[in-house]
């Protein structure tokens, strides 16, 4: 592996945003193929970040900065990568459901997803079922992720699943839900495909759903 790719890894793991982007640019100048930068630099770096986090060596803000570094690097690489490779990495439409303005949990999840290479379309907060449907039609994601902190707005997750069904796009996507009051039993009750009890288990679940979707040949 080139020393520049190694440096990219190091800078991303350390959460140095500008340095990571610089290193990626340098690697491209050295004619290192974008695919190689991604596969030997960015992805292993984020895997390392994930395991450091699991081991309790680094904390959420550290992961956040690494994810930002990853995201900044991806912005440069994305136009240079084959569309099929991008598709493989997955895309997700995410939002906090109607009636709830809580942003932070959903933002953390978005960041973790971006860090793992997902293309993330963040619809923000108070997202109506119709807005989810429109976003699915416009962005063709593999995953729809919904968040809520309030027990009172949980039912709007169910309403969104219904709306996706009615619009005939339900089968195209996997639905992932999360938030403090949400449980796996509730996910099953409303017909969602997956549930994450926190940002990192949400990410694991998303990866599994993506794999399942590929298995179904979609």
């Amino acid at each position, binding site marked *: 592996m080139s020393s520049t790719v190694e440096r990219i890894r190091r800078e991303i793991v350390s959460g140095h945003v500008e340095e990571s982007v610089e290193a990626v640019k340098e690697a491209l100048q050295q004619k290192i193929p974008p695919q190689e930068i991604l596969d030997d630099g960015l992805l292993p770096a984020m895997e390392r970040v994930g395991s450091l*986090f699991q081991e*309790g060596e680094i*904390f*959420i*803000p550290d992961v956040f900065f690494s994810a930002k570094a990853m995201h900044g690097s991806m912005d440069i690489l994305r136009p240079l990568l084959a569309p099929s490779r991008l598709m493989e990495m997955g895309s997700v439409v995410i939002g906090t459901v109607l009636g709830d*303005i*809580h942003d*932070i*949990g959903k933002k*953390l999840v978005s960041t973790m997803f971006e860090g793992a290479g997902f293309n993330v379309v963040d619809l923000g907060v108070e997202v109506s079922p119709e807005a989810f449907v429109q976003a699915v039609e416009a962005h063709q994601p593999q995953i729809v992720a919904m968040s809520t902190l309030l*027990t*009172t707005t949980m*039912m709007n997750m169910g309403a969104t699943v219904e709306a996706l069904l009615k619009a005939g796009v339900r089968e195209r996507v996997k639905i992932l839900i999360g938030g*403090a*009051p949400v449980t796996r039993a509730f996910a099953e009750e409303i017909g969602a495909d997956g549930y994450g009890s*926190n*940002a990192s288990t949400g990410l694991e679940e998303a990866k599994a759903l993506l794999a399942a979707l590929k298995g179904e040949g979609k």
Partner: protein
Amino acid sequence: MGKTLRVNVGDTTRFRVLSEDQISEILGAALEILEGVGVKVNDEEALKLLQKGGARTEGDDLVKIPSALVRRALQTAPGRIVLANRDGGRDLVLERNRIYFGTGSDCPFVIDPYTDERRQCLFDDVLRAARVADALGDIDFFMSLGLVSDVPRLTYDRHQFLAMAMGTRKPLIITCLDRNGLADQYEMACLIVGGERTFQANPYFALYAEPSSPLTHSKEAVGKLTFAAERGIPVVYTPGSSGGATAPATMAGILAQGLAETLSGLVISQLKSQGAPFIMGGVHTIMDMRMGIFSYGAPELSLLSASMTDISKELNLPVFSTAGCGDAKILDEQAASEASISLLLAGLSGANLIHDVGYLESGLLGSLDMLVLSDEVISATKRILRGVKVNEETLAVDVIANVGPGGHFVGEEHTRRHVREEHWLPTLMDRTNREGWEKGGAKTLGRRVRERVIDILEGYEPDPLDGQLLGELKTIVALADERYAEK
């Protein structure tokens, strides 16, 4: 129920976290946040009130509040608020350093005391929690503890209030979905106490409402706030920020932002109705940076609560505080430690309404075990707070002279006279010797607590609501169910 304990005065134990200089710096920062950064207000009426009052608006919903407005609001807000019980008794006098303890509200889960199963909270669970709170001598007010889930979701708050009023006669702090939910509960409360005027003279409940950190007042929160202000319903306006996530990581930063959030609520309430009863809040803690949870067992929660209480005394506002809660999943050693540290600190600080007693699992689980254990910890805490009474009688030099070197005090009249007042006696903590403990079944604290819970549930009956009144209350709830079912 014992007499109200007023701490940090007379012989009682003294405690404070912040110096006057620190308070003034934090307050300065809060005023700068309000004046320079501004808050988001997602409500037309409140925006107009603020504009008319002299605040500057930018864009659709950003409001910058000059400090003069805050000063004026602090002057018109009542420095004392009284909360009454179901029979009109003026039980809680929210004044500087008077402490009261109560439950938290709206946990989605409970542990069934008979089966030990963790499950969703039902109407009967809130009723049970109310009955247990009613029985406990050191629980002064009641919040629902659980979120009623076996009723229509759009009107659950009315059902929940019914369970609360049925189970206890203690003063309540209620939550609601929105203005309409509040209006129905207010109607129910007025029916119970005998009319609006009686409610306003002796408010039977305070309303809990919360802005969203950072610096955002949702339409629902402001709607509740202004509805309550107009009718003289005391409001606990309490942001809940997690340091490092929805507020800065630093304690001072959390306090400054939290204060800006509650003070902007105060301004709105006073603009709506001068003299509206307002209780400042702030359930501030840290986000655990490994788990991402809002920690209810963090020492920082207690440190921040005590700091907010110090600030409230400077502002002469009644204050809402937090203790008796934790991140433990059941009543285990962790829960006991979390309860003890937080209850002692909140008591020492002299906070008025110390809530969330009984919360486990970071606020997701309402636990009767935790509530009953906390009642005992509060009792012990109060002993510490009562402090050391120093006078000729208590110094007892003459008694010591009488006994002399080598004697004993068991046979002294002085001992008999003072032992009940000066010595605290536990009812759950075990002080038997090993033989006695083994004979009693070698029970852990957890088992003794659960037995107390069951004893209360089976043996204690609160004063019931009048039958006809109960019928009328149920009618209001049923009408609300119908209204929402049509939609």
